């Protein structure tokens, strides 16, 4: 596990990155669409810090946090959002399509549930080549209703593949409460249909997520197959920009705000006697500095060359 300070920094990096993104969209500086992960930082950081350097991560439409948690570069992320040549996908992918294979981040994606079979295939390859690696796929409670969830978990369970299915159950798929879309809204229960363990953890508790993913990873590396991990969490922001959040109450949001994963992490550090005001200020300052730098980097970066626009469709 990384140092606690480093983990705390990542949590803040995600928080500030996402706040800044919401801000830039609200101001009309950025266009298109985006899905921020405010409130879900602990699941991302907890899960990614349990992985090894050669493991791979598949993400979702709500992927900024996952990428930062995995060690992604906020400059290149911001540049992607600004549609610049220096962005992770050279401006081609936008908010929903960023990847950094150099750190084992194989991409966010715009298709709800789309990463699941990809992760299964990666794990299949790892097993076949006897590589000690796992694939971890993030997905949401809404994605669990997709056919590919079923097909992917079935294949993974059948072949006992080294893959971790990490569900961020934030209570909603867009406007739809989990219980209004899933006959059995406890996602972990579904694991029983695929011959794998299903565990539920408090997704706002970084350490709980870390432990669950670490344990699942060990199982996977021992050849005992996949695990379905359900992280109960909440997105404090809207689904995407311009979401009036008419499908939930402000009281519910306030209740979850009290369970803010950053506050939780700080409390835990305090409890362990590892926190002081100076660290707090330093971490927040560094996070703010890096996000400000990311924006400067993005703004200064060139737009992609139109001449090259048609290049790169084929090898």
């Amino acid at each position, binding site marked *: 596990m990384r140092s606690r300070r480093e983990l705390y920094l990542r949590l803040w990096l995600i928080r500030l990155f996402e706040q800044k993104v919401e801000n830039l969209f609200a101001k009309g500086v950025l*266009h*298109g*669409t985006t899905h921020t992960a405010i409130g879900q930082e602990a699941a991302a950081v907890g899960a990614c810090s349990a992985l090894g350097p050669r493991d791979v991560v598949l993400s979702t439409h709500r992927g900024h946090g996952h990428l930062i948690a995995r060690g992604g570069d906020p400059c290149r992320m911001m540049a*992607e959002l600004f*549609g*610049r040549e220096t*962005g992770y*996908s050279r*401006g*081609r*992918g*936008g*908010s*929903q*399509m960023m990847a950094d294979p150099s750190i084992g981040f194989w991409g966010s*994606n*715009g*298709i*709800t*549930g789309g990463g699941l079979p990809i992760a299964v295939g990666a794990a299949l390859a790892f097993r076949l080549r006897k590589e000690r690696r796992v694939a971890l796929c993030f997905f949401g409670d*809404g*994605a669990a*209703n*997709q*056919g590919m969830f079923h097909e992917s978990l079935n294949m993974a369970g059948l072949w006992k593949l080294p893959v971790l299915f990490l569900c961020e159950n934030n209570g909603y*798929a*867009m*406007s*739809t409460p989990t219980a*209004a*879309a*899933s006959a059995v809204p406890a996602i972990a229960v579904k694991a029983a249909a695929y011959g794998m363990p299903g565990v539920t953890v408090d997704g706002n508790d970084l350490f709980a997520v870390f432990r669950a993913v670490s344990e699942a990873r060990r199982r996977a590396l021992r050849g005992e197959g996949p695990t379905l991990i359900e992280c109960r969490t909440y997105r404090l922001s809207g689904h995407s920009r311009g979401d009036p959040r*008419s*499908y939930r109450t402000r009281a519910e949001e306030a209740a979850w705000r009290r369970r803010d994963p950053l506050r939780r992490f700080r409390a835990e550090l305090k409890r362990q006697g590892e926190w002081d005001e100076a660290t707090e200020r330093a971490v927040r300052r560094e996070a703010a500095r890096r996000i400000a730098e990311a924006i400067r980097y993005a703004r200064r970066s060139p*737009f*992609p060359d*139109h001449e090259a*626009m*048609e290049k790169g*469709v084929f090898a």
Partner: protein
Amino acid sequence: MKTLTTVEALRAALWHEMRRDRRVILLGEDIGVYGGAFGVTRGLLDEFGPERVINTPISEMSFTGAAIGAALAGLRPVVEIMFMDFITLAMDPLVNWAAKLRYVYDRACPLVVRTPAGGGRGYGPTHSQCFESWFFHVPGLWIAVPSTPADAAGLLRTAIRTENPVLFVEHKRLYGRKGGVSDRLPPVPFGSARIVRKGKDLTLAAWSWMVAEAEEAAQRLAEEGIEAEVLDLRTLVPLDLERLAESVRRTHRLMIVEEGVRSGGAAAEVAARVGESVFEYLDAPIQRVTTPEIPIPASPSLERAAIPNSERIVREAFRLMREFS
């Protein structure tokens, strides 16, 4: 006559049809409280209740399939696929079921699948695509591609009333567009192209958002002395080949504007049919103005360069007139 956005016009059409016919139900993701990703169904849940405005799980394949089952059982389901890009997940029920039920089982499948298509909003490679051309290659489906609020409402009403399954393509850039709509939202027949503007030098055929670009291009061309006729196809299936051919027989030149990527696009089919039917009248090869062979990039700068717009149409039209005059 009142002025409505396309979203309002579509909503009004749904409202009227649901009022008129209790068999009409809606299915889709977040179409209830949220009113759909683009607000088309806003308010309909309150009016018609959760039994008829059915918020589905994220299961494009099977709620489309379920809509087919409901259609067979006598309802008239209108499905919303949140972005046309996700229709990749619903191909099987549409192609291997809905499109074949009439021919094989002689059964009616009064299903409408509404879906927002197209780019121009910076949504990136998986939220900006146009796939209507695929369905051109699937016998048994009607395809509507409206370009104005009035046509959107009118074609939707017809779509809901026909016994045929209909793919109903709504362009995202059209949603906020305003236009005059008669109070009674008259149904618009399928298979009848609309002459947007008369002209004698060149025919510009387009559908969906591209009609607006073609119209703007024609205006500019007129200022330079080139009279382009603009045809809005309105539906791809049935295709109004007659009106197209009639126009080309007068103008002797055809340019088809399609937002989809070039290869295998509907423009190719339209070109082929016109070529077959009025070959002798053509003074120039039929031109296609389309998006190049690439995924739609997210960066606004690239996206603008990729998708056809009025400037490009003007440029291409000049080139055509110059090379074949």
